[in-house]
Structure formats: C-alpha cells, structure tokens
C-alpha cells in the first residue's frame, strides 16, 4: 500500500500526448527549467553576439591591459592584451555551444549508425563493433580524445571530431540495446514480411524507441563536450589563439592569477554555468523521460 502510493507519485501513468505531457512535467521541474533558462540565455547571446558584445573580441588595446572589472567602461575588465573580457566571453559562448552541438551531432550520427548496424545484423558484425566499442571504453575518456587529436593534429575542428568519437560508445550501446529488444517484436517481423525496406524500417520503427534515453544522453553530452573542449584547448590541443575559446582564455592568462583574478575566474564561471545548464536540463529530462534511470 505504502509502496503503491509512493510508486504512483514517482511514475505517473503514461498518457497519450507523451511529448505534451513531458513538456508539462518539464515546466514543473524547477531545476530543469533553470537549466533551460541558462541555456537559452547563452544561446541568445551566442546568436546575437555582434549586437550584444560591447566591443570586438579580438581588438587589442595595449594601453588598457588587465583593466579591472567595472572600470573605464569595461564591464568585466580586460585581459593581458587589453581585449574586452565580456565580449570575449560572449563570443566564447558561440564557440562553446557550436562545439557542444557539433560534437554531440558527430557522436549521434556515428552511434546511431553503428548501434543500428550492430543490433540489426547481429552475428560477427555485432561482435566486431562491440569489440571496438569495448576497446574505446577501455581508454579513460580524456586520454581517448587526446589520442585522437594527436592523430588528427591540434585544431578546434579536430577537437570536436575527437570528442564526438569519444562519446560515441554510449549512444551506440543505447541504440543497439533497443534495436535488440525491438527486433523480435511482432510489428517489426510483420513489416519485414511485407517487404519494407530494411533501412527505412530501422529508422522509422526502432529509432523512436531509443529516443528518450538518447535525448537525455545527448543533453548531458553537450555539457560534457563543452568541458572536454575547454580542457583540450587548455592543453593547447583545441582552439588556437586568438580564438576567444573559454578554456584557451584561461590557459593564456593563468600566469596573471596573482595580479588579475578576473582573467581566470570569469571565463571559468562561464564554462561552469553553461555546463551546469545542460546538466540541470539533462537530469530533469532523465527524471521525466526515463524514470528507470532515476537517481
């Protein structure tokens, strides 16, 4: 009885209009909404960066080097080359969001293709793909990206590819598992017997079933990608100067921590907030879309 009551509270019965219902649930989840608001603010700033940013992020004013925040019209101060920090952070948001979305896009495409291939064809195809994925998982995540960037050469684009490849295993696994579960369902067998094109069948019937988990993973993945790319740039393996990338901004001004706290602190807070936004939203989505994975 007690369990039933509590149970009911946790997992409301599935109703028609799943997405509408989910959206309603999301609006009632304060943490997720906070995440969504953070993401929206960053996204708007990124889109309208030229309008929002007070200055050009690349223009150096040597006379105004390391100006403290709220002085001489520099709201967040300047860096060691006299560039406006606020403008650089705003443009950095553009770069970070693009990195997050592109990296996750790359891993989604790879993961979906590999996952469906493995799950649908089974046999040795499945074994080979899963073996490769196991080996990728045997690497610590950050090392894997470093290895891949080292292979491809340091650049922002290659960092995105590296992060995309490193994150791929999780999507491939989720998709493969749901393909395996769905493959033997009656409707799939029925459609197969009607001669529906294999590929079309896979994408139309199997993919939507893995959608909720994938959405959750992808949301959390964007945050993780932003974090990884900042780390790679910090190591000199991602964005190259003078790109206003957050991680790179921290790396290139780390020797000034004794004299100018803002040059390191503020870009870091930007990273923290952006990643937090995606983590909050991802956690909220998990609660709503995938109650089994609940913390």
């Amino acid at each position: 009885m007690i369990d039933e009551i509590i149970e009911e509270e946790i997992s409301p019965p599935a109703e028609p209009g799943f997405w509408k219902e989910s959206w309603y649930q999301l609006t009632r989840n304060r943490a997720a909404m906070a995440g969504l608001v953070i993401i929206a603010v960053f996204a708007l700033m990124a889109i309208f960066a030229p309008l929002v940013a007070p200055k050009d992020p690349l223009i150096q004013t040597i006379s105004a080097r390391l100006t403290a925040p709220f002085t001489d019209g520099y709201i967040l101060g300047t860096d060691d080359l006299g560039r406006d920090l606020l403008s650089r952070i705003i443009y950095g948001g553009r770069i970070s969001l693009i990195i997050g979305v592109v990296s996750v896009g790359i891993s989604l495409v790879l993961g979906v293709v590999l996952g469906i291939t493995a799950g649908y064809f089974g046999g040795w195809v499945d074994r080979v793909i899963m073996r490769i994925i196991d080996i990728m998982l045997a690497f610590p995540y950050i090392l894997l990206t470093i290895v891949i960037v080292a292979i491809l050469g340091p650049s922002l684009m290659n960092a995105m590819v590296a992060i995309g490849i490193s994150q791929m295993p999780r999507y491939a696994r989720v998709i493969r598992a749901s393909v395996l579960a769905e493959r033997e369902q009656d409707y799939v067998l029925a459609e197969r017997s009607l001669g529906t094109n294999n590929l079309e069948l896979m994408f139309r019937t199997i993919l939507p079933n893995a959608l909720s988990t994938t959405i959750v993973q992808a949301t959390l993945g964007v945050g993780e990608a932003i974090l990884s790319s900042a780390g790679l740039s910090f190591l000199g393996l991602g964005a190259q100067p003078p790109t206003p990338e957050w991680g790179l901004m921290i790396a290139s001004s780390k020797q000034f921590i004794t004299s100018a706290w803002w040059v390191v602190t503020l870009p870091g807070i930007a990273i923290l907030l952006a990643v937090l936004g995606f983590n909050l939203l991802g956690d909220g989505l998990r609660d709503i879309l995938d109650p089994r994975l609940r913390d």
Partner: protein
Amino acid sequence: MLKFILKRLVLLIPTLLGVITLVFFMIALAPGDPARVMLGERANAEQLAQLRSELGLDQPLSKQYLLYIGRVLRGDLGKSIVTQQKITDELSARLPATIELAITATIFASILGIVLGVAAARRRNSWVDYSTMTGSLVGVSMPVFWLALVLIMIFSVGLDLLPTGGRMDVRLYFKPITNYYLIDGIIMWFREGNSDYFVSALKHIILPTVALGTIPLAIIARTTRSNMLDVLNQDYVKTARAAGVPEGKVVFRYALRNALLPVITVIGIQFGMLLSGAILTETIFAWPGIGKWIYHSIGARDFPAVQGGILFISFFFVVINLVVDLLYSVINPRIRLK
C-alpha cells in the same frame, strides 16, 4: 571463482591489443611526416632520415605495426626524443607521484562523498540533501583546471596558507626514499624526530587532492545517495526495523553495506580516471607525475613519449577496472558463491 578470474584475464588480451593498436596509429596515421612534425621546420634531411629509421617510420605500415607490438610486449616503449631516456624509466620515476596523488584524491572523495551521500539520503528533501545535490551538480560541471587555479588563487595567493605547486619545500633538501613523499615524511619523522618533511609533503598535496578529487566526490556523493535511498526502501530494511534493530545499526550496518556495493565500483573507476585526469591537475600544480610529463611531451611534440605515456596509463586503467570487477565479486556474496 578461479574460472571467472581466468575468463576475465583472457578477455583482457583483445582489449589490450586494441589499446596498443589505437596508440600505434596515433603516430602512424598522423597527418604529414611525423619526423618533420617532431623535429620542426629547421631539421635537415639527414636528421629526418635518422629519426625515421630510429622510429622505424621507413618500414611499411604492417611491419611497423608488428614491430611495435613486439616491442611493447617485451616491455620496451622506446626512447624519448627530448631526453633520449628510455620511456619506461621516465614513467617509473614519475609513477609514485601520480599514484600518491590519485590515492589521496580517491580517499578524500570517497570519505566525504559517502558521508554526504548517506546524510542526504537519510534526510531526503532537507537542506543537507539539497545542498549536497546542488553542490555535486556544480562539482561535475566545473573544469578541473579552472578549479585548480581558483584554489591556488584563494589558498596560496590570497591567504598564503598552502604552496602553489611541487611536492616538497625545496629548502628542506629532501632526498626521496620510497618516492611516496607522505610515507617518506613519516619515515623521516620516526628516523630523525623531525616532522617538517611530512608537514611539507602534506601541505603540498592538499590543493591538488581537492582539485583532483572534486569530480569523483560529486559522483560518489550522488551514487551513494541514490543507492542509499534505494536500499532504505528495500524489504529487508523493513525486516530489520520490524525486528527492533536500532536505527543507527539499520542504516550503517544493514543498509550501507548494500548501498556501498555499487559505490565501490564507482570509486574504482574514478581511481582509474584520476590517474589519467591528472594531466591537467598535475600540470597546474607542477606535480612531477606522469600527467605533467605527458603534457610537456605533447608541447614538445615528443610523440614516442606521449604514445608511451598514454599506453601505460591506459594499461593501468584497464587493469584497475579488472581489479575493481574482481573485488566487487569478492565482496558481493551473490556473485561470490555462484
């Protein structure tokens, strides 16, 4: 049990081979001429040819691959281009520093994480719970290198309490014994009755420990909380309560033991991650471990060194994961007695 271990060991072979292969291609498939990349634009043809033959780059790819695997299996990771030292020597000289830091960070993260996780679960929806959960979400959203710099800014630059980097105050003219400085400090304390070495080692390791341990701390706290909540709702906890077992014992003996089973796996994986995640932390705190060495090797385009370092850490990671799996089956009677 023995069969289980053997099976896992056999499964390790293809994984390790895969790791070697991937690391091999790191150099073999690098765009352009690796020798040119490593030696820079000013190198002359003779130098390039020499490096190529040294690294076997003038051989066909398949032969290079077989040679590489053969060398790795013999425990030969090649020579560093910068120092001309054997990479295995370079690694073993730096391993203690890395392990020491990974251990302190794991201990810090585990103890604090479990305490916070249990407290949050016991007082669900209280301020303890909310602040732990918010804190851990912030913790996993933070770039480690940034946290490290902020810690230095606050505790070293601002408050002048702790050193900014290194493992020991240079003024102590310390000669390492085991190369685990905390242990060395204790040995010196006993031997000479002088606690300075230990105190200095401890002071140096605090900030790197906190920086490196924050993400695992957040993850462990979250995992502990969710497992604890799960276990506290289990029937056997109800049984224990119905049998009149005191609440403290129910929580700490009955429930915690079950809740910690999955947490131990997480701690193990995090320990493996720390060995690799330490690249950033070690660099910032000038911690002379493998991570910092890999960082500098990347900067110096010392590819054999990077390759060797990454291969070594990945091996470590794979082996630790295996140990964790085996350990889990030892402490979990459900698996143990199968």
